[in-house]
């Protein structure tokens, strides 16, 4: 919410700086002031970058697993679920066979429940073949602390016992707090902790892009 508000503020702001005025890279294209603090928003991935990354990840998943018959793709809502659907449709178009794809809500397994307001649960949809004895490919938009993935591993354990679990993320921004590593990464984005990575997807936000917001590292 805060980030959205800040972004709207920057677009309507009269003292918006032209891209390149302050920062020479093409990525830092928005810069505004709010309460005396400079907010940078740089475009890290555009629509075609995202499409290319997803296509590559799809091929990597197929290569690693020798096809798509043994895999079940589970996206973590909200944006991970959309990415999972996209990966599944790319893999289906490559292989010509349907892929097991679903969504996995991890809210009830989070370790920060007592620190925040309870949130409404998102839908969990497990495809017909389930996870028992299969290779689960977890999909999320941003890999950061790793705590979401830890929660997801617990949530999977409640549904069944997969033979292995792999992790695909669109963005790996570093700053892991747990020993968790992605198998398939769209883009590694080194960030500072004070920055935030905002993934927007057509299905949910109307546009495909990844932005880094906040003061630069």
């Amino acid at each position: 919410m805060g980030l959205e508000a800040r972004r709207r503020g920057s677009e309507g702001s009269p003292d918006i700086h032209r891209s390149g005025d302050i920062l020479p890279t093409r990525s830092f294209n928005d810069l505004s002031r709010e309460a005396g603090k400079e907010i940078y928003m740089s475009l890290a991935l555009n629509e075609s970058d995202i499409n290319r990354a997803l296509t590559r990840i799809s091929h990597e998943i197929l290569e690693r697993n020798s096809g798509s018959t043994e895999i079940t793709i589970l996206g973590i809502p909200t944006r991970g679920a959309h990415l999972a659907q996209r990966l599944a449709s790319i893999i289906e178009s490559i292989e010509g066979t349907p892929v097991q794809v679903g969504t996995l809500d991890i809210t009830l397994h989070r370790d920060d429940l007592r620190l925040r307001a309870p949130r409404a649960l998102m839908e969990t949809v497990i495809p017909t073949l389930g996870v028992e004895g299969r290779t689960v490919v977890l999909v999320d938009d941003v890999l950061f602390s790793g705590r979401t993935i830890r929660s997801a591993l617990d949530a999977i354990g409640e549904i069944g016992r997969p033979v292995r679990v792999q992790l695909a993320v669109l963005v790996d921004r570093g700053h892991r707090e747990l020993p968790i590593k992605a198998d398939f990464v769209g883009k590694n984005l080194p960030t500072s902790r004070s920055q935030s990575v905002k993934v927007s997807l057509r299905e949910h936000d109307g546009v495909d892009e990844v932005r880094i917001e906040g003061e630069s590292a």
Partner: protein
Amino acid sequence: MKHLLSINDIDKEFAITILDTAAEMAKVTEGPVKKLPTLRGKTVVNLFAEDSTRTRISFEAAAKRLSADVINFTAKGSSISKGESLKDTAQTLQALGADAVVMRHPASGAAHRLAQGKWINGSVINAGDGTHEHPSQALLDAYTIRKHLAGGTGDLAGLHVVIVGDILHSRVARSNVLLLTKLGAKVTLVAPPTLLPHQVEQWPVKVSYDFNSVLPTVDAVIMLRIQQERMSDLYFPSEREYSTLFGIDAERLSLTKPGSILMHPGPMNRGLEISAEAADSEQSVVVEQVANGVSIRMAILYLFIAGSQESVNG
């Protein structure tokens, strides 16, 4: 929001959130592992100053499936039967570190007193207070109706629910009228005039004394128990007459639309308000209501006690 004392405490949007959350809870508990770590380290006290089977074991099962520690506290065999006041009982529970107190009490307003008394820091969940309210029962009834008749999502707009029987003494009826109308359903009450509360004409419902005339347009029938323990006077001439006029049997059930459902909060008086044939018919969802009750109570416990208290519902 910290306490669940009355359906009036929650708005339509939050009611739907509770129903949606319960639907996801139901899915989780269908899996091979029925336990979630969500409330690990939280203590839920079931304070039941009045007899209950269903509600107490339902809250207990819900709390245990979410990994909370459960302490059961019933009037019989406790200090309540020795005459301890609610305040002293509450202070005992506070000393035990209760994060939530689920309370059933014979006095209307007892849950409100407990919540407003500032004797405890935890949440108070009303599990039935006298003839006042029973919000978790109304939520599970709405959930059951939504699952069968509204595709399992959204509100209950356009549905017609009839509540039959002892409206006067029924906390289930009060909570159900508030919730079902909030969710957009049309509610009709059917009862003998002696078992209708004063000023029922100010409730957002229709009232009828003729059960048969209502049945053809009804989507869900909620039968209420004749509460012998709350009846100090004679409210109807005989059980047989009540049963004939206001009980449901297979013949009456056949007047309803195909696909309509028959509900009862339990425990049933078979042969009085509901015939055995009707209770065991295909339209009866009485047993399913119990299962749905666990999901609803998991959702309530999760939404009211899992997070930090300052910003619940935010």
